[in-house]
């Protein structure tokens, strides 16, 4: 038949099938043979069961009759439904609730004993009831507790007494009954329960063990053997990744704690400043009180004067400013013993960048780089903090890199007694380097106050400093000279310090009267070394003046250069910043105190008529009209902030004291490098025209251009406290007026500073500073040009979060606060990184 010659197509489930009644297709049977083409579907039953007699019979019956016949059904074991006592044992009516029944989770856990009393128990309980008070439920509870308290072995009577609250007598009765019953019981427990799997896996095949716990085996698709392996790999990957998450989380935490520590230390330093605790005495006291409590972290008791080398008047103005700022905004110096040693100060001091010992700066740069190394901050910061306390100090203090630090895993040999070795201080003929720093130079001791003549110092084991004295014919002269020098400030009457310039002038004139030697020293022909001893000023600094002192330090430190630049007599500029003022610290401090007193008076004035007093006290302030001045205040404030940020940044990058800010920098470098670049560029571009405006403002005050950078900063620091304290609101209102000016000022000064400061330092420093500039520009102002703000936001969304109108006291803090989100951001970034 031709109809059969072709094969039927496969059944297509998506193809419409017309439905016919058989009676409409009388010729259907002719096609019946092709039906074989439709594949038979499996029944879904097990093959062997499929052929069972009763099933086959039922199926055929169904096919024959279209329905099952009673005698053709599959027989099953019988079931009865005529339990006579059903009504009696199941309690009465249960009304069907109108609503669908909704069960609350865990509402089923009624505190009912699992044990059910049986007839045997009932007899016992009834018997017992005659003697003592017991009800079936109580009995069940007792048995329940005994059973659940027992493991493989039944509990002892002693334990039973602990388990049960009943009378001893009752417990004993029930316990004995229970023990007896348990012995005759076939099961492991009187409360029958399904056998649990054994841990050793021996119950794999026990048919009575049921409901085994599912192990964490995955459900892979059938017939895919490698699925499980892949799954396990994925599991491992997941585990590893989550471990990475944990590690990063912990890093984040560690860095946070470090920042916290930094803030605390900063706060302590500030407090100590305010208290005038320059010698660390108060701190020591506090620490002594805290001693029994064992602080987790030793708060550094550094004499505050350590880091402010005011003896070095020759240090460039801006740099001095920085030092001041650093005192305020900065500092974490974990205490180490050797820090108490008299600080070594090279006489030449490398005041100018050119003279800086070439070793020092590269070290900084290296540290800068280290800091960008995000997770490396385990040990590093400490050493960095120790070695690089401040740039100025770093430059002057050759000890930093040589300071002895016991390194883990390092072997220290006993000294060679027979040879001197190649120490830097050993002369070349003895096989040493004969380093210039270790040449004999004039040395002054602080206690007792005298010049000991020529000496050289070298660093011994553990950072100890040895002074090798050398005899010279001038020894007696030196002694004399020193005394004169030391006593000199005392000769100056207090009221002579009318203003800073006068003080300086008087100092200068006084110094001119000194002997030729001193002149030599000053001009750095002779080096003069004087170890600093902080405790000298204790008596001088009383509570009241301490606050002012700080300001005066600020002020003097900054005003000085201003005057210095103005005074044409200084050779320092022309002599490329060689040592100039050989003030001793004592002199300087006393000077400071005079200033402080004066400042105090000024402050009183300021509070009454702030604008006038400000302008009168500061040489650099004579440029402003009232409105201008408020703007200028703003400028200064912005400047101040910027500078603080800047200084801290700079120091940071230089000396690694600011781990957190370094982090931020590193974040910028790492995460936002591209954006930063953009922002920086635009910041520069956008600001430069404005800076012209600013310049004009200042040029009108006939300040030499050279001063533009320094004098505002000086004024800024000097003005900062008073203006902020009394006039925060006004300065804020002024903000809106002088936005652009302030903005430009900020950048201008920053760039100026930057240029000046970074002459010696490598490109890395510039790099690190540059993005910071970009950061601080927007932050200084509340109402930044929207474009700039936008840019800032793109660069670093945290910037916009910083409250621009935060209180003055928290100015240094503000920097940190702005860093916080930045840091968080880092963390977030990292987390996000590992998540992906």
């Amino acid at each position, binding site marked *: 038949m031709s109809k059969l010659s072709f094969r039927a197509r496969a059944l297509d489930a*998506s193809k419409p099938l017309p439905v016919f009644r*058989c009676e409409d297709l009388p010729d259907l049977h002719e096609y019946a043979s092709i039906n074989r083409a439709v594949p038979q579907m499996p029944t879904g039953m097990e093959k*062997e069961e499929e052929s*069972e007699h009763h099933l086959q019979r039922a199926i055929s019956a169904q096919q024959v009759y279209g329905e099952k016949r009673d005698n053709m059904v*599959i027989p099953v074991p019988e079931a009865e439904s005529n339990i006579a006592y059903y009504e009696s044992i199941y309690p009465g009516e249960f009304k069907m609730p109108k609503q669908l*029944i909704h069960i609350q989770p865990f509402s*089923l856990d009624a505190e009912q004993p699992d044990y059910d009393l049986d007839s045997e128990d009932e007899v016992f309980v009834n018997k017992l009831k005659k003697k003592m008070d017991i009800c079936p439920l109580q009995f069940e509870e007792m048995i329940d507790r005994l059973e659940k308290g027992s493991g493989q072995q039944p509990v002892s009577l002693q334990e039973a007494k602990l388990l049960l609250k009943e009378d001893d007598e009752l417990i004993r009765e029930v316990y004995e009954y229970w023990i007896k019953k348990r012995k005759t019981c076939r099961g492991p427990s009187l409360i029958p329960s399904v056998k649990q799997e054994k841990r050793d896996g021996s119950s794999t095949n*026990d048919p009575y063990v049921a*409901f085994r716990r599912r192990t964490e085996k995955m459900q892979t698709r059938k017939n895919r053997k490698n699925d499980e392996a892949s799954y396990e790999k994925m599991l491992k990957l997941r585990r590893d990744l989550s471990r990475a998450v944990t590690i990063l989380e912990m890093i984040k935490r560690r860095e946070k704690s470090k920042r916290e520590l930094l803030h605390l230390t900063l706060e302590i330093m500030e407090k100590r400043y305010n208290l005038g605790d320059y010698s660390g005495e108060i701190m020591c006291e506090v620490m002594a009180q805290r001693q029994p409590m064992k602080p987790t972290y030793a708060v550094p008791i550094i004499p505050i004067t350590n880091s402010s080398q005011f003896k070095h008047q020759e240090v460039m103005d801006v740099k001095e400013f920085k030092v001041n700022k650093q005192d305020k905004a900065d500092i974490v110096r974990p205490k180490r013993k050797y820090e108490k040693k008299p600080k070594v100060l090279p006489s030449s001091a490398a005041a100018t960048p050119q003279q800086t010992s070439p070793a020092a700066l590269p070290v900084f740069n290296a540290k800068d780089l280290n800091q960008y190394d995000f997770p490396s901050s385990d040990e590093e910061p400490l050493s960095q903090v120790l070695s690089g306390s401040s740039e100025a100090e770093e430059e002057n203090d050759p000890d930093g890199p040589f300071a002895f630090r016991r390194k883990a895993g390092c072997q220290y040999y006993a000294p060679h007694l027979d040879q001197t070795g190649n120490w830097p201080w050993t002369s070349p003929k003895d096989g040493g380097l004969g380093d210039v720093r270790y040449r004999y130079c004039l040395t002054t001791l602080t206690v007792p106050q005298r010049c000991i003549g020529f000496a050289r110092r070298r660093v011994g084991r553990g950072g100890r400093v040895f002074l090798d004295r050398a005899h010279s014919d001038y020894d007696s002269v030196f002694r004399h000279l020193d005394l004169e020098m030391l006593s000199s400030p005392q000769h100056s009457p207090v009221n002579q310090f009318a203003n800073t310039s006068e003080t300086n002038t008087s100092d200068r004139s006084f110094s001119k009267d000194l002997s030729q030697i001193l002149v030599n020293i000053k001009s750095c022909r002779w080096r003069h070394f004087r170890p600093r001893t902080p405790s000298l000023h204790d008596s001088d600094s009383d509570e009241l003046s301490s606050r002012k002192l700080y300001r005066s330090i600020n002020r003097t430190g900054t005003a000085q250069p201003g005057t210095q630049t103005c005074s044409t007599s200084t050779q320092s500029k022309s002599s490329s910043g060689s040592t100039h003022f050989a003030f001793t610290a004592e002199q300087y401090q006393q000077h400071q105190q005079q200033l402080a007193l004066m400042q105090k008076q000024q402050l009183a004035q300021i509070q009454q008529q702030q604008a006038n007093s400000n302008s009168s006290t500061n040489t650099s302030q004579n440029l402003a009209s009232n409105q201008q001045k408020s703007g200028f205040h703003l400028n200064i404030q912005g400047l101040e902030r910027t500078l603080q940020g800047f200084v801290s940044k700079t120091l940071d990058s230089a000396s690694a004291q600011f781990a957190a800010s370094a982090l931020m920098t590193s974040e910028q470098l790492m995460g936002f490098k591209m954006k930063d670049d953009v922002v920086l560029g635009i910041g520069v571009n956008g600001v430069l025209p404005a800076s012209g405006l600013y310049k004009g403002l200042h040029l009108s005050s006939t300040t030499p251009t050279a001063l533009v950078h320094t004098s505002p900063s000086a004024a800024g620091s000097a003005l900062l406290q008073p203006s902020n304290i009394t006039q925060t609101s006004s300065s804020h209102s002024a903000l809106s007026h002088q936005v652009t000016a302030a903005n430009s000022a900020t950048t201008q000064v920053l760039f100026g500073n930057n240029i000046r400061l970074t002459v010696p330092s490598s490109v890395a420093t510039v790099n690190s500073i540059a993005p910071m500039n970009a950061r601080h520009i927007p932050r200084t102002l509340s109402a930044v040009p929207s474009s700039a703000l936008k840019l800032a936001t793109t660069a670093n969304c945290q910037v916009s979060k910083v409250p621009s109108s935060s209180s003055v006291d928290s100015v240094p803090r503000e920097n940190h606060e702005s860093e916080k989100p930045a840091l968080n951001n880092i963390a977030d970034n990292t987390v996000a990184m590992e998540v992906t």
Partner: protein
Amino acid sequence: MAEVGEIIEGCRLPVLRRNQDNEDEWPLAEILSVKDINGRKLFYVHYIDFNKRLDEWVTHERLDLKKIQFPKKEAKTPTKNGLPGSRPGSPEREVKRKVEVVSPATPVLSETAPASVFPQNGSARRAVAAQPGRKRKSNCLGTDEDSQDSSDGIPSAPRMTGSLVSDRSHDDIVTRMKNIECIELGRHRLKPWYFSPYPQELTTLPVLYLCEFCLKYGRSLKCLQRHLTKCDLRHPPGNEIYRKGTISFFEIDGRKNKSYSQNLCLLAKCFLDHKTLYYDTDPFLFYVMTEYDCKGFHIVGYFSKEKESTEDYNVACILTLPPYQRRGYGKLLIEFSYELSKVEGKTGTPEKPLSDLGLLSYRSYWSQTILEILMGLKSESGERPQITINEISEITSIKKEDVISTLQYLNLINYYKGQYILTLSEDIVDGHERAMLKRLLRIDSKCLHFTPKDWSKRGKW
């Protein structure tokens, strides 16, 4: 003529059995176990080619000892050759497997079955162990099955998905035999059909008493009475998601309500041969159908369902309790399971293997459902009404394969003039109409209050 004492496991002989029509029959049966109670020997017999559920303990009077066939040592048993596919009736395979699989782990066996306490199990085991001939024979067998078995000789845990075992390598003579004599549940007494892992100490009881609401098992009526004073459940401990008339459905989470789920599984295992209780109930939901009367919501049947099925299963185990069987409840359960699938927007199929009763019930449901659709099709504008298999599947939530198999089973698919057509014969139509008249219990989807949960989002079920 053999002596009663000579009868051992593996012997085959006709055993007297009364069929549904109350007629005496002598079907061939196999002795699976022998036990001695008060000097009276009892024999556990499996009727060849009858379902296991009819296996029973018989006295020697019902054995036709004249026609006894002792287990052969080498040759295949007649069942194997003559009656292929009668696996349940082939204890030889069981025993052999037992020897193969279990005897390496003899310590486990002796540990799990203290012979003194449980004579019937113990004797079975001992008898098996004492059959060297069997062992040799089993070693000689080289069929496909056997090679399969030996390759899988090491006992391993069964797969974790699903609720049924098709691979019976873990079968053991213990699970081949019913262990509970009788279960009392509410006003019903049920004779279990299969083994269920109730606590072993309860297997010797003549009656196991179950609380009909929480399904907790007790050893005596007194215990049940005591339990009922403490148990205040009057319905399955879950959320009622359907109610129409007296019929309700309760949804129970196998993870949240473990004790009820386990008790339900233990009870269900008595009537489901392929059900496995190897693993916990966590990945399952249980839908318990109840019938309300003044005493409460009485369990009629249930089906379980995997929270997440990798193979489109919408039912794992399904059971109508014997007292309610053959009254339409099974179809109601099936219908409900498809209603749930419709709400979920999926097609589903019951987990395999199906039992004989399962196959009949499902076929019946599928046939009626599909025929209902086909007969309801109206011809549009004089054209032949037509429908695709996919459409049927979508409307009914019946998986496509099941639709096709049903159409085939009903012989509706025909190849006619170059295309497939569906043909409805008069017989089919009549039979369907008659059947639908009798099918009074239906699910009303309006009474269903069910929101499917996406379990994949919930971690571990």
